[in-house]
C-alpha cells in the first residue's frame, strides 16, 4: 500500500515543458546572406512551448489539437523518447527527464506506450508470442518460461486475442487485431500509466468502438491512468476525464471533459468543437477561422492564435496570454476571455 500523500499527488506533472527541433544543425546551414552581410542564424521548430499540465491517478487526460500542435511531441517527451529543451517532467513525485537510460528502466515498466499505426509498431519478423513475451521476460527476469507464457496468455485473453494465435506473424492479422496485440504488449508488464498516441485513428468506425471499449475496460480493471493523444473530439468526449486543447505547442484551454463540451471558452476550442460534423446537422455548421495554422518555425509574438482569431486586439499581438482559472474550474489562456470580451 502506498501512503496517502503519494496517492493524492498527481502521477504526472509537466512544468514549463519546451521542445525545439533545430532545423539548421551545421555551421554552414546557419550562415545566411542578409542585407549584404553574412549572419549566423539557426532556425528551430518550436513544437512545445512551455506547457504546464498534470495527470492524476486513474484519469484519462486527453490532449487534442490539429496537426502540428505538438500533441505527439508531448507524448514522446513524457515517454522519454525525446529530451525536453527546457522544463521538467515529474512522475510519481520524482523528476524523470534528467534520468539516464539505466535509471529509466524501472520506469519503462510502469509507463507503456501505444502508437497510432499497428502496422509499423509490431516487428514483422517476430511472432505475436515472441513480441508479447519479450517485454515480460525483460522486465520480470525472475519469472520462469512457463510463468511468462501464462502471463502473456492471460493478457491475450483479456484483450480478445486467442492465445492459440501466438505462432502467427503480424501480417496475418487485421488492423484492429494488431492494435489489440499492441495494447496487449503494453499491458503484459502491468503498467500503471499508458500513453496512447492516436491509437484508433488508423482504424474503421466499428473497430474503433472495439478498441475504445477495450481501453476503457483495462482502465477500470487495472486502475490505469491514460495520456490519450487524439485529434478526434468525439472520442475525447467519450473517453476523457479532462481535456487539454493545444495550439502551436501552447495550452489554450484545460478543462473537465463535460465542461469543455458544454461551454468551451477559448475561441480556438469553440471553433474546433464546432467543426466536428454531427449526425444531426444537415449542412456544414461551424465557426469559420480565417487563414490556416502558421508554421511553428516563426512563432508569432503574443498569443499564438491571434492570426486566426476574430477577437484579437493589440494586446493579443504583444503579450502572450497566461492560463487563468475560470469560475467553473477550467484554465483558459485568452485575453478576450479574461477581459470579458467573449461572453462565457
Amino acid at each position, binding site marked *: 500500500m502506498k501512503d496517502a500523500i503519494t496517492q493524492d499527488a498527481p502521477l504526472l506533472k509537466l512544468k514549463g515543458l519546451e521542445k525545439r527541433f533545430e532545423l539548421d544543425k551545421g555551421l554552414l546551414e546557419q550562415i545566411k546572406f542578409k542585407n549584404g552581410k553574412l549572419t549566423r542564424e539557426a532556425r528551430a521548430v518550436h513544437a512545445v512551448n512551455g506547457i504546464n499540465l498534470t495527470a492524476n491517478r486513474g484519469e484519462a487526460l486527453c490532449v487534442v489539437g490539429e496537426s502540428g500542435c505538438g500533441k505527439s511531441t508531448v507524448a514522446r517527451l513524457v515517454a522519454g523518447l525525446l529530451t525536453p529543451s527546457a522544463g521538467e517532467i515529474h512522475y510519481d513525485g520524482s523528476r524523470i527527464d534528467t534520468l539516464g537510460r539505466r535509471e529509466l528502466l524501472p520506469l519503462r515498466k510502469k509507463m507503456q506506450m501505444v502508437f497510432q499505426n499497428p502496422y509499423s509498431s509490431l516487428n514483422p519478423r517476430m511472432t505475436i508470442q515472441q513480441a508479447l513475451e519479450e517485454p515480460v521476460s525483460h522486465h520480470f527476469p525472475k519469472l520462469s518460461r512457463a510463468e511468462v507464457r501464462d502471463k502473456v496468455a492471460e493478457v491475450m485473453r483479456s484483450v480478445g486475442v486467442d492465445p492459440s494465435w501466438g505462432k502467427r506473424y503480424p501480417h496475418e492479422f487485421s488492423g484492429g487485431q494488431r492494435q489489440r496485440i499492441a495494447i496487449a504488449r503494453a499491458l503484459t508488464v502491468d503498467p500503471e500509466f499508458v500513453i496512447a498516441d492516436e491509437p484508433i485513428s488508423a482504424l474503421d468506425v466499428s473497430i474503433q468502438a472495439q478498441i475504445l471499449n477495450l481501453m476503457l475496460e483495462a482502465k477500470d480493471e487495472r486502475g490505469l491512468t491514460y495520456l490519450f493523444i487524439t*485529434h478526434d473530439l468525439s472520442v475525447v468526449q*467519450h473517453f476523457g476525464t479532462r481535456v487539454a486543447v493545444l495550439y502551436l505547442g501552447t495550452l489554450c484551454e484545460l478543462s473537465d471533459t463535460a465542461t469543455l463540451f458544454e461551454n468551451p471558452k477559448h475561441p480556438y476550442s469553440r471553433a474546433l468543437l464546432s467543426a466536428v460534423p454531427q449526425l444531426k446537422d444537415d449542412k456544414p455548421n461551424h465557426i469559420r477561422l480565417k487563414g490556416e495554422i502558421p508554421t511553428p518555425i516563426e512563432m508569432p509574438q503574443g498569443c499564438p492564435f491571434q492570426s486566426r482569431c476574430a477577437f484579437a486586439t493589440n494586446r493579443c499581438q504583444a503579450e502572450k496570454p497566461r492560463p487563468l482559472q475560470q469560475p467553473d474550474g477550467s484554465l483558459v489562456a485568452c485575453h478576450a476571455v479574461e477581459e470579458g470580451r467573449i461572453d462565457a
Partner: protein
Amino acid sequence: MSLLSVRDLTVKFAMRDQTVTALNQISFDVGRGERIGIVGESGAGKSITGFSLLNLISKPGFIAGGEILFDGQDIAKMKEAELRKIRGNRMAMIFQDPMVTLNPVLTIGQQMVETLMAHRKLSRAEAEQIAVLKLREVYIPSPEERLHQYPHELSGGMRQRIIIAIALLLDPQLIIADEPTTALDVTIQADIMELLLELCQSNKVGLILITHDLGVVSQMTERTLVMYAGRIIENGPTREIINDPQHPYTQGLINALPQQTLPGHKLKQIPGNMPALTDIPPGCPFSPRCSYATDRCRSERPRISRYGTVEVACHEVERLLKDEKKEMTA
C-alpha cells in the same frame, strides 16, 4: 432521365490464383445536381466505385459486367479517346491527397491552363483569365500570384482548394470526391466541405461524396449509399438513413459512434471484421457479424429491394416489413 445511372456494375481483380469480385452488381442513380454520399469502411468498395465511374480501373482490375450510363452513354464500353472527352470535362474527380494529385514540377497556372487548353479552344491568355476566376471562386487570396507558385509552396488546405478549382474548371456536371478532406485538419475540413457544398449548389453540379464519416454525409448529401464487402446494402434519403437505418450493418455503424453512447459507457461495437475480398462468406456478406442472421442469411444472398423511399438488401428487413403489411391487412 438521371444524369448517371449505374446498372449491375461488377468489377473484378485477376489475382495470380483466383479472381476476386471487388464490386458485386451495384446499381444506383444520380440525378442532375443531386448530391449523394457513399459510406462504408475500408475495403467496402467505395473508392473502386468512384474510379470505375470514370473507367479508371487499371490492370489487374477490370469491369466484368454492367453499365455506367452517363447522360445515356455507357462509360463502361467507351474507348480511351471518348473517355478523355468526359474525364475532367463533364465528370471530374477530387482525390484524398492533394499532394499526389498536383504535379510537383508544374506551377498551379501551368496545370490549370493545360487542362483548359486540352478541352477548349482557348488562347493562353484566355485560359489564364478563367483560371484566375476559378481560383477566386474557391477563395484563394491573390490568385494572380498563385498561378506562378508550385504546389509545395502552398498549405494543405490551399492545395485542396486548388484541386476543387481545377475540378470546376470545365464546368462539369458531376464531381466525384473521394475522401477529399481526410488528410486535412477538422477546422480546414469544415471550410472545404462548406465550399464544395456552396459550389455544387450554385452551379447545379452533381456530387458523389465518398467518405467514412457519417457526420460529413449528413451535412453534405441528400441521399446515401451504404456499402459492405463490394455491395450496396442500403440506399435512401440521407436523413432517413441517419435517423432510422434499416440494415443491421448501417444500424451498427451509426450506433458504434461515440456520440451515440453516454460518455464513459461501453460503446455498441460490431463484432468481428469486414471480410477480405478473397474470403466473402456465402449468402449475406454481413451474416457472420449480424445478430439477426438465420440459416437463410448464411446461404442465400439477399437482393436489394425497395421499401417506401429506401432500398435495403436484408432478409430480416424483408421479413419484418412483410409482417407489418400482414398486420395492416388483418
